[in-house]
């Protein structure tokens, strides 16, 4: 969409691009906006945590131990006497980071893989997609558990492991998008004008494939966050001293009878974020649904 600037035209009516239409439709969808707002709120809080956290991360008060929500500690304290609100904020940083970065990894691999397989087609496409089918059949949960157990649990590996699980579906979506676009006549027109395949992909195929990609990305983030929380629950994900919502929930689950707030508050934080992401994702899907704007 690199429109070339041109002052020469006089009263020119400003066209409204598909993105603009999509934004108008999205604005009408109250739920999606709410989801977006909550998500933004979570991201801002996570970003500013080191400066706005009520207590320092390590400060513990052994004598206090686990206390219910009180004036001093809005969400109560954990078994070390550490402020739960601070823990949830720091946990949010990691959980959101894992969610966004692992999705970025999945996005990068998946989009390039799908674009190549989709555009080139033929034998190359067959081989690339056969590999994807094989990886789909592998019991990934088992491999992640093994990877975590074998190579220890640094966060870097966690991002790669989760990213490696999620890119498969992304590749398939991108491939089907590229394949359907390639048959479109405006791509044939671009070929007949004499554009090189690389330019065609960059200027014609990718912009039109972005809609579904954006939608799928917003739906991948929650599933990635769930995966990380799931691994942490099994003791294979994030390791102390770092923490994540998954870890807080697993600690909370152990002592839920005596200290239910240790389970409920981190649980709410995770569920709320997942809600907002999913609503935003659905809203984007309806807004970006190109089929709708045909007539």
């Amino acid at each position, binding site marked *: 969409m690199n429109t070339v600037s041109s002052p020469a035209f006089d009263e020119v009516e400003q066209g409204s691009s598909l993105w603009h239409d999509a934004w108008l439709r999205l604005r009408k969808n109250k739920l999606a906006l709410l989801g977006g707002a909550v998500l933004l709120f979570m991201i801002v809080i996570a970003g500013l945590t080191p400066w706005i956290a009520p207590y320092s991360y390590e400060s513990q008060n052994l004598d206090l131990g686990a206390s219910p929500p009180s004036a001093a500690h809005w969400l109560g304290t954990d078994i070390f006497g550490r402020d739960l609100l601070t823990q949830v904020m720091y946990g949010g940083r990691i959980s959101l980071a894992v969610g966004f970065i692992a999705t970025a990894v999945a996005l990068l691999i998946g989009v390039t893989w799908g674009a190549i397989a989709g555009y080139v087609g033929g034998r190359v496409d067959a081989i690339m997609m*056969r590999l994807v089918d*094989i990886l*789909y*059949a*592998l*019991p*990934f*949960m*088992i*491999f992640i*558990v*093994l*990877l975590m*157990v*074998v190579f220890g649990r640094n966060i870097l590996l966690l991002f790669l492991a989760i990213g490696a699980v999620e890119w498969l579906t992304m590749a398939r979506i991108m491939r089907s998008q590229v394949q359907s676009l390639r048959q479109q006549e405006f791509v044939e027109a671009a070929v007949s004008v004499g554009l090189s395949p690389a330019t065609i992909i960059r200027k014609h195929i990718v912009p039109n494939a972005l809609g579904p990609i954006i939608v799928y990305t917003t739906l991948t983030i*929650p599933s990635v966050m*769930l995966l990380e*929380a*799931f691994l942490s*629950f*099994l003791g294979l994900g994030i390791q102390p001293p770092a923490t994540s919502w*998954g870890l807080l*929930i*697993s600690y*909370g*689950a152990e002592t*839920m*009878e005596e200290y*239910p707030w240790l*389970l*409920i508050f981190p*649980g709410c934080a*995770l*569920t709320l974020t*997942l*809600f907002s992401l*999913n*609503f935003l994702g659905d809203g984007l899907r309806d807004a970006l649904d190109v089929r709708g704007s045909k007539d």
Partner: protein
Amino acid sequence: MLRFLLVRILQALPVIFVVITATFFLVRSAPGGPFDQEKVVIPEVRAALEAQYRLDLPLHEQYFAYLGDLAQGDLGPSFKYPGRSVNEILFAGLPVTAELGLYALMIALVIGVAAGVFASLKPNTAQDYIPMSLAMIGICMPSFLLGPLLVLIFGIWLDWLPITGWGDIPGDKILPAITLGSAYAAYIARLSRAGMLEILSQDYIRTARAKGLPEWRVVTQHALRGGLIPVIAFLGPAFAGLLAGSFVVETIFQIPGLGRFYVQAAFNRDYTMILGTTVFLSTLIVFFNLVSDVVAAWLNPRLRHQFRGGNG
């Protein structure tokens, strides 16, 4: 039909082979062996132990020996449970995981399809939003959060349902099945709604209505069959997810299933157990993917010719 199955099975074999080889060498590269104890083991005893389990052989010999046994279906002895073979432990754990998975899938299908179809009849009205937002809860509430919450509410505060064990106390299967099934009920609800909406917008539905068929017949006779194909195609990969989900649910509810064995085996470096479970689970996953593909393809007459021995 046979030709199609044969081709798919032949394609599946390399997958399982890759899984075995990768797991075999991955596990061996993990630091710490199966026989390390807090109280250090005398070198001679460790040597004897490794000899008993053929761990003293060079790695490639171990590999081929293992493949030889595997060919005869023997997954080898378990290191951690000396008196038992991996086959035995797996088949002790399998019925439990299978039963849990089955109940979870049944709940997911019944609730999911009902909610999805119900919502698709009047899109964008209350009848659509309520089931779909409930489905949203199912997706956003992970099993390891939903489980403890259910235990807290129904097990402890209201004390209506038992919260551990499997089969010993009547009613102890309800909470685990709901916990594992809820996420899938949500996915299936969304899938069936989308599938039904897609079909209901087709021309042949208008033809059916033009024929004067009452609405319920239009939905059941014409729309349902096409609308549920995506759900069936989803069941294959869902099975793999169910297995992963069972890890957590079995830990929360103390259920002696396969899931828990796997996680413990990984921690104990019980090589044969890890390999046995991996091979077992990946074969099941490949099998279920195959089944769901075949059923989904069979349902669609256009693809059915592949089975009548047509030209491929």
